[in-house]
C-alpha cells in the first residue's frame, strides 16, 4: 500500500511515495568538508559546505526513523589510479594532484581517512555507499542498478558541491526518469553565487531538472505520511 506525501517546493509541489523514495547523500567527505582537508588546502572556505552538515544530520535521523532508503556516495579513485582519466589527473596544474599525499591521507584515494564520510553523517550498517570515479553518481557505478532493483522512483538529493557533483548527479537522474527533490539547506558550494544559481537552474523552465525545497518541509511531509494509518 502506498502513501503519497507532498512537499511545498519550487517550482511546484513535489509528490512522492516514501516506499519508492531514496535519500541520496553525495560526497560529504572529510577532504571536502573538514578544516585542514584537501578542499581547504586549495584555498576554499569549508564553512560554506559545513553549514549543510547539521540539517543533513537531522534529515538522516528523520529518514532512518521511518525506514526510508538511504544511499551515500564518495568520489575517489583506486590506489593505483587505474580508474582516473588522465585529463582529470593532469589538468590545471593544481598544487596537489589526486593520489598525492595530503593532510588526511592520499588525496581522493579510496580507503584513505580524508576520502571517508564525516563522522556526523557516517553511514549505518546496511546503508549502501557508492564509490564513484566521476562527478556524477550514475556513471561507472552500481547506483542505477541499485535503484532499479529497489523500485526507487524518487530521489531526495543532498550533499556537496551544489554545482558540481550534486548538479551532475541530478542531471543524470533526471534523464533516467527519476523525480529529484534537492534540499537547499542540505547542499553546499564553496561559492555562494553558484549555490544560488545552481539551485535556480534546477527549478527553472518548469523544473527542468527537478524540484527544490528546504529539509524541514520534506521532513514534515515524511512524518505526516508515516503517521497516517497504514492499510494492511
Amino acid at each position, binding site marked *: 500500500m502506498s502513501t503519497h506525501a507532498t512537499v511545498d517546493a519550487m517550482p511546484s509541489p513535489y509528490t512522492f511515495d516514501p516506499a519508492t523514495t531514496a535519500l541520496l547523500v553525495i560526497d560529504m567527505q572529510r577532504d571536502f568538508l573538514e578544516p585542514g582537508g584537501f578542499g581547504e588546502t586549495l584555498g576554499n572556505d569549508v564553512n560554506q559546505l559545513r553549514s549543510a552538515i547539521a540539517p543533513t544530520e537531522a534529515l538522516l535521523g528523520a529518514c532512518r526513523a521511518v525506514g526510508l532508503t538511504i544511499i551515500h556516495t564518495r568520489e575517489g579513485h583506486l590506489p593505483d589510479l587505474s580508474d582516473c582519466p588522465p585529463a582529470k589527473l593532469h589538468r590545471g596544474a593544481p598544487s596537489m594532484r589526486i593520489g598525492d599525499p595530503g593532510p588526511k591521507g592520499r588525496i581522493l584515494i579510496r580507503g584513505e581517512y580524508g576520502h571517508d564520510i564525516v563522522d556526523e553523517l557516517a553511514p549505518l550498517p546496511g546503508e549502501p555507499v557508492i564509490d564513484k*570515479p566521476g562527478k556524477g553518481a550514475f556513471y561507472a557505478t552500481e547506483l542505477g542498478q541499485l535503484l532499479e532493483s529497489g523500485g526507487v522512483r524518487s530521489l531526495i538529493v543532498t550533499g556537496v558541491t551544489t554545482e558540481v557533483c550534486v548538479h551532475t548527479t541530478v*542531471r543524470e537522474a533526471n534523464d533516467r526518469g527519476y523525480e529529484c527533490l534537492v534540499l537547499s539547506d542540505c547542499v553546499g558550494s564553496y561559492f555562494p553565487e553558484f549555490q544560488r544559481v545552481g539551485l535556480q537552474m534546477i527549478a527553472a523552465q518548469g523544473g527542468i531538472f527537478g524540484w527544490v525545497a528546504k529539509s524541514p518541509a520534506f521532513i514534515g511531509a515524511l512524518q505526516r505520511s508515516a503517521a497516517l494509518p497504514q492499510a494492511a
Partner: protein
Amino acid sequence: MQTLVPQPDPPTGVRIGPVQAEPYRWPYDGSVPVARTALLCIDWQTDFCGPGGYVDAMGYDIALTRAGLPATAKLLDHVRSLGMLVVHTREGHDPDLSDLPANKRWRSAQIGAEIGGPGPCGRILIKGEPGWEIVPEVAPAPGEVIVDKPGKGAFYATNLDLVLRTRGITHLILTGITTDVCVHTTMREANDRGYECLILSDCTGATDPGNHAAALHMVTMQGGVFGCVATSDDVIAATTTS
C-alpha cells in the same frame, strides 16, 4: 540508429592547441591531433532556435538561442576543411512516446509545450517533425554523425560514447544550445568519461543570459572542474600544421 560512414583520413600533422582558454591553455596535454578531436553541435534544432519553432512561438527571444549560430557555422567550415569529426545531436522522442519519461512529459505540459503535442512546426520534440530538424545554418553535411538523444545529456541512452571511442576521439569541442541545460549536461558526462572538453562561449547560448554566463563560469572554477572555456576564434587561431 546511425550507421558509421567511413571518413577520409584527415591531413596529417594538423593539431589543435594550445588554445588560449580559461582557466588553462587547452588541452591539458598541450595539443591534440585533429584526428583525436571531435566538434559537438548540440541540439541546434528549429524548435529551440528557429523562427516559428516552439521556443519562438512561446514568446521567448530566439536571438538569445541563435546568438551562437554564425560563429558555429564559421567554425564548422574550418573544422570540415581539417577533416575533424563532427557530431550533431538532436533531442527528441519516438512518435509513440515510448522513450519519454513520465515526469518529463508532465513538466513539459505544465509550461504549455507538451512533448508529443501539436506545436507550430509539427509535434513538439518528436523525431521526424520539422521542428525537430537541425536549422539550415549548421545543418549536418553528408557523412557527419547524428546522435538522437532522449535526455539532456548526449551520452545517456545513445551510441555517442561508442562512436567517439571507435574513432579514437579523446578531446571534445562543444557548441550548441542551451548552455546551462543540454550543453552542460553533455560536458559533465563527457568529463566523467575522461574526455578533455572545451566549451565555446560564442558558439553556445541560453534563454536566460544569466544562466549562460554562470554555466561558463562554473566550468572555469577549481582549475577547470569540467574543462575549459574559449571562443571559436581562439580554436581557429590554435590550429597548427607541423
